[in-house]
């Protein structure tokens, strides 16, 4: 025993001469330096180029492009269209989202769990796929629903999806999930004694709803409407798929047009991007202030679940109405895409004669762009998710485990992309990386950077949340037990965080797999993705192959989402289990 102790102390003596704390600081400083450098290069530097570009640099220096962004008739029309779109989507999504949220959260509506899941499905379907589905459903003449209407004796095509209304409708069918989930959460946490006391005073149910419940969750509703509106502005897909054929132009599609011109009009695109980013940032700022200041929702400490109102005879009729509304946003688009994917000709009836697997072999093998797109999308999404989670983890670690100066700046830079629509990010990256010193435009790397930057906020939030759940003493105990810093990270920290990090990884992977709005401006021949293949093939009118690609994409997204749900549920259960001990 004595000998062993002696040996131990000799180890201590031997090590004393090494300046170990300095080494430790150097590792962390290197991490911080690398993080700051990466974020500055990939976020800060491109944003500078956005401003330079808007001023006409490097060819000239002038404010005329910024002035033109607000004065040229084409730009003014795009701005007006965008404003109307945001307003329309904000309104539509509240009108749809909030009543459904009340019905699923606070009544004994049949199938309410199913409806809740379907709203989630509507949100995870990439909106450009919903657009294609609605071309199949409501395209003039050939659309399923239009033919159904014509069959009842109405002449002509009563509903044309290629219209401003069509764009707003399809986008609302996607983003109404935002006010829905916000209102749902708020409604569940409303203290029901507030409602009951109104009933005691003699208020009828309708009076109670409009005078008590709705004002209580008003911040969630307005916040949701604003978020939905901000979201709608950035959604390039529906604006391009449904707006461009009707020559209705919005800010993102206008920017797309400026870059698609020959020669590309970088200055105009940058100036319009600045307008777009200003609108987004102001919207987010207002939403933050509004939600932050006026929160009336009282979370009951007694954990009493709010009572479910009995709908009585209205139960089933209401369920039917909600089924139609929610179904139109989720099951209907999914069903028509899958049906078209297995059809020889999508306009023909879905019969045995019309069934085929040829579209899948075209999408997966024969069609070069599609096959390449699938491979590229998977490679990019996997690489982007891994990189983003690693960077997010480093930032979260510096933020929570060190007192390094500058860690706040890092956190702030990482959240910045929340205010950058994909189109804007692409315009910025394009100008920064088309020239010396990092000329990577035209390679797959610029797409990877775009995906990593877009997912930085989710990755940092995810890693931050995961690290917060791990008490620092677990790492300290490992250090005292003799593990080095790196061994502690590898054997203690990462294994404990594994399921939460996988969750963050999936949350980045899912949107990256189908990313369109930045990709469409950054891809070149050879770096096409699934979304680009869908965009180009639908331009060529090959809707069946497009539907097959969409089916593959949706299948993967759904699988990944189910995995996410399962992981999230498991980590919640683990936390509860820990709390009960």
């Amino acid at each position: 025993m004595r000998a062993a102790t002696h040996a131990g102390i000799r180890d201590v003596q031997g090590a004393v001469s090494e300046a170990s704390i300095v080494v430790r600081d150097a590792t962390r400083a290197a991490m911080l330096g690398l993080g700051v450098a990466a974020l500055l290069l990939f976020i800060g530097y491109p944003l500078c180029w956005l401003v330079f570009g808007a001023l006409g640099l490097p060819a000239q220096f002038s404010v005329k492009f910024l002035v033109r962004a607000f004065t040229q008739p084409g730009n003014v029309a795009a701005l007006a269209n965008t404003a109307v779109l945001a307003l329309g989507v904000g309104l539509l999504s509240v009108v749809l989202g909030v009543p459904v949220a009340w019905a699923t959260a606070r009544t004994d509506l049949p199938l309410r769990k199913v409806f809740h899941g379907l709203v989630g499905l509507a949100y995870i379907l990439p909106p450009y796929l919903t657009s294609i589905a609605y071309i199949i459903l409501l395209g003039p003449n050939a659309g399923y629903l239009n033919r159904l209407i014509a069959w009842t004796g109405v002449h002509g095509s009563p509903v044309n999806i290629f219209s401003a209304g069509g764009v707003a409708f399809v986008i609302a069918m996607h983003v109404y999930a935002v006010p829905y989930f916000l209102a749902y959460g708020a409604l569940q946490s409303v203290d029901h004694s507030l409602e009951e006391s109104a009933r005691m005073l003699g208020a009828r149910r309708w009076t109670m709803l409009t005078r008590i419940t709705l004002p209580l969750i008003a911040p969630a509703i307005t916040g949701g409407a604003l978020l939905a509106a901000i979201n709608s502005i950035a959604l390039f897909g529906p604006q391009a798929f449904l707006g461009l054929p009707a020559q209705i132009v919005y800010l993102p599609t206008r920017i797309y047009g400026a870059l698609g011109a020959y020669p590309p009009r970088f200055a105009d695109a940058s100036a319009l991007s600045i307008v777009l980013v200003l609108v987004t940032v102001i919207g987010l700022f207002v939403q933050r202030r509004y939600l932050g200041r006026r929160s009336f929702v009282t979370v009951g400490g007694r954990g009493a679940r709010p009572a479910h109102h009995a709908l009585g005879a209205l139960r089933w009729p209401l369920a039917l109405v909600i089924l139609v509304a929610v179904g139109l946003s989720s099951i209907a688009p999914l069903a028509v895409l899958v049906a078209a994917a297995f059809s020889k000709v999508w306009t023909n009836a879905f019969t045995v004669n019309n069934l085929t697997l040829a579209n899948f072999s075209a999408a997966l093998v024969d069609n070069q762009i599609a096959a390449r797109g699938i491979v590229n999308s998977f490679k990019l999404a996997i690489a982007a998710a891994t990189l983003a989670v690693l960077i997010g983890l480093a930032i979260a670690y510096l933020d929570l485990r060190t007192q390094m100066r500058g860690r706040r700046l890092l956190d702030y830079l990482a959240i910045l992309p929340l205010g950058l629509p994909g189109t804007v990010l692409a315009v910025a990256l394009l100008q920064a990386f088309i020239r010396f010193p990092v000329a990577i435009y035209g390679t797959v790397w610029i797409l990877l950077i775009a995906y990593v930057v877009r997912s930085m906020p989710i990755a940092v939030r995810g890693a931050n949340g995961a690290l917060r759940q791990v008490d620092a003493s677990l790492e300290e105990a490992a250090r005292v037990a003799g593990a080095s810093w790196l061994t502690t990270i590898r054997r203690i920290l990462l294994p404990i965080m594994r399921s939460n990090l996988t969750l963050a990884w999936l949350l980045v992977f899912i949107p990256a797999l189908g990313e369109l709005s930045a990709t469409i401006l950054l891809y070149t021949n050879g770096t096409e993705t699934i979304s680009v293949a869908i965009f180009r093939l639908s331009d060529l009118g090959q809707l069946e192959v497009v539907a097959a690609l969409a089916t593959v994409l949706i299948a993967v997204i759904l699988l990944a989402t189910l995995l996410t749900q399962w992981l999230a549920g498991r980590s919640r259960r683990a936390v509860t289990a820990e709390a009960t001990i």
Partner: protein
Amino acid sequence: MAHISIRGLAKRFDAQNAVHALDLDIGNREFVTLLGPSGCGKTTTLRLLAGLATPDAGEISIDGHVVSSPGHVLPPERRQMGMVFQSYALWPHMSVFENVAFGLTLKRVSRSEVRTRVQHALDMVGLEGLGERTPNALSGGQQQRVALARSLVTEPSICCSTSRSAISTPSCANECASSSRSCTAAPG
């Protein structure tokens, strides 16, 4: 033998002095308990001793070798210490056996020796047969004893605890007395 010598030790958090001008000597085979109201710096002192924090002034030496000073801190993994944390800090992704064995596997001790030493440590704290459980499946008292076994299994020359009851259990006191070891406890 292990002689701990603390001279003029100070640690501040923002404007607050956690430890200020502390002088303390702990001899070989001594059992020292730090007493005081909460927030008086007991845990901070032990964290400084373990190398988990950097002092703002003063120094800590073990057997005449400086291990902590403001510009130079020997990292905790090189100090050959044992520590029981107030929260026990048991790793939830490892079994009880793996928790206790962790420090030994890092020292590249042979598999059979790890097995016997972990079994011995678990027997000592009265947890024989519970090695395959996960820490979450144990009671609070059992968790505490796992933490104790984990801190003693590597036969450290210094053992400290920020948890009062852990270090004052008879098995720990015996273990400290029977080996050449300094024990420091800072009751939570």
